[in-house]
């Protein structure tokens, strides 16, 4: 059969590949293992190329963020369906465990409540005092960070990746870099976002680096994940600044995380390094909260920064009649006080210019007082020798 032969002349197959087989390559036989090896080698080359070209972007995402987002969008709902039976089994084990350990857990909870009640009272008192101090000192405190509640639908627990998929995405305001917490403490940060699903990298991931501080000494350190359950504390500043049992909090350095989020407790690892027992491991990480905190830039109103200077002066409303009267009254008082002060200064200068004969050494004329009057207690009576003229603030009613 030739290439120009009718296609239906071959009863087995009437398409062109048969004609090709009967061509000049008719006797060419390639072992199947060779073709498989060629495909495998090409695939290996492709994998190596992907591996080299996959980089982390400055915002913490991936250079293949679109592909990862598409995969997360597909596997997220599928994970929810496939994982349903596993969740049911987990709920059954929780129910059985709760049934058999209810008494011991009740005792433990009672002891915990009794221990925490004094702390609660102290916290309320300290919160009150702290709020007064902040108001008195005019401290600029950080605003409350809005949060979004989410459910973890998938989990990577291997040595090379520690990550989770959560069922909230950009539609709820989640962005790359948002911190994620549960009821015990910090879990990780969002590194990929789609419309309805987000991926977060845990503190234990081998690529995770988190700036932290030691609560007792305020020493800074870097929390470095290594794929185990207890990440390492590295670059601890200060000798002896960490002890076993110290609370580790987020330091907020770099602006990626709010300061003061509880992370865990310091402990010595079996390899001699400082590690952190994470608070978030005290329970299952199923329901989490995503802090819609991007960085410190969100604390600044860009419109206020871009407004022209002194713009507020041109927009003040005109005073009403009562305010205008009060303003005129205050201006008249200030003018009268200034004139009286000037007259007193002139009199003092005249006295200094004509010294009496009985005075061997005339005191040097004091310069005109230009300092503003120091605030005095309201109960203190003004001295006639030192301040004959009342200041506007101290002038009695009816004096003009």
């Amino acid at each position: 059969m030739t290439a120009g032969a009718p296609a239906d002349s071959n009863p087995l197959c009437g398409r062109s590949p048969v004609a090709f087989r009967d061509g000049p390559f008719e006797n060419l036989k390639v072992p199947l293992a060779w073709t498989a090896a060629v495909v495998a080698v090409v695939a290996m080359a492709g994998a190596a190329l992907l591996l080299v070209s996959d980089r982390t972007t400055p915002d913490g995402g991936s250079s293949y963020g679109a592909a990862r987002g598409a995969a997360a969008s597909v596997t997220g709902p599928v994970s929810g369906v496939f994982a349903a039976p596993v969740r049911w089994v987990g709920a059954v084990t929780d129910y059985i465990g709760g049934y058999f350990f209810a008494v011991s857990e009740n005792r433990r909870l009672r002891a915990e409540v009794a221990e925490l009640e004094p702390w609660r009272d102290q916290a309320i008192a300290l919160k009150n005092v702290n709020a007064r101090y902040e108001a008195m000192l005019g401290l600029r405190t950080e605003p409350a960070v809005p949060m979004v509640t989410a459910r973890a639908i998938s989990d990577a627990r291997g040595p090379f990746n520690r990550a989770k998929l959560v069922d909230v995405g950009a539609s709820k305001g989640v962005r790359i870099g948002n911190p994620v917490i549960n009821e015990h403490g910090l879990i990780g940060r969002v590194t990929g976002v789609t419309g309805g699903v987000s991926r977060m990298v845990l503190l234990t991931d081998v690529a995770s680096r988190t700036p932290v501080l030691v609560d007792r000494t305020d020493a800074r350190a870097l929390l470095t994940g290594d794929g185990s359950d207890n990440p390492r504390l590295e670059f601890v500043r200060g000798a002896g600044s960490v002890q076993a049992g110290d609370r580790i909090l987020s330091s907020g350095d770099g602006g990626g995380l709010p300061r003061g989020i509880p992370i865990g407790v310091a402990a010595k690892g079996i390899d001699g390094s400082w590690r952190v027992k994470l608070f978030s491991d005290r329970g299952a990480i199923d329901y989490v909260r995503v802090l819609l905190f991007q960085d410190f830039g969100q604390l600044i109103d860009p419109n206020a920064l871009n407004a022209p200077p002194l713009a507020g002066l041109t927009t003040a409303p005109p005073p009403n009649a009562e305010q205008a009267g009060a303003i005129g009254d205050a201006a008249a008082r200030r003018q009268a006080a200034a004139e009286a002060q000037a007259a007193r200064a002139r009199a003092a200068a005249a006295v200094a210019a004509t010294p009496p004969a009985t005075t061997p050494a005339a005191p040097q004329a004091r310069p005109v007082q230009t300092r503003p009057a120091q605030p005095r207690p309201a109960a203190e009576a003004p001295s006639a020798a030192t301040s004959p003229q009342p200041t506007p603030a101290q002038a009695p009613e009816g004096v003009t």
Partner: protein
Amino acid sequence: MRRPVAVRVVGPLQWIVYPALAAIAATIIFATPVQLFGLMLPEPVFPMVLAFAWPLIRPSMTAPAVLFGLGLFLDLFWNGPLGLWALCLMGVYVVILLSRNLLAGHEGVIRFAWYMACTLAAFLVAYVIVAVRAGNPPAILALIGQILPTLILYPIADWMLERFDDGDIRFR
């Protein structure tokens, strides 16, 4: 008179597509964030079984392509470096494919030893790649925690070899 024997054709659908889908489903199920009696589910590399069994069952152009896709799926699903598991799984496939003649006829411990050696080599390559990329070596205990469940999967590979090796009558 001979009784008619039903001809059973074991095509790529049976020994490539269905096992690949099963591996994907198992990976997704075992990624469920749930604790059973206080313990998290293990996270074995299910496609490792296929990377070992497929070249022994029969050389094919489809199998390495599907295996490459499975590796990319693992990387995307676990948020690993793209190409990491694709490279490691393809490495296992190529090694077994080249050693096919050596492995022919062996069973039991010898075959498991090969499976264990290939698994350890794949994890070693992955460990080195991740350590170099992150500038931070992963924990050994966590590594063992993933290697052991993967090794436990060997009976599945053995079953696949018994079930599909030379199972297609067209290749006899």
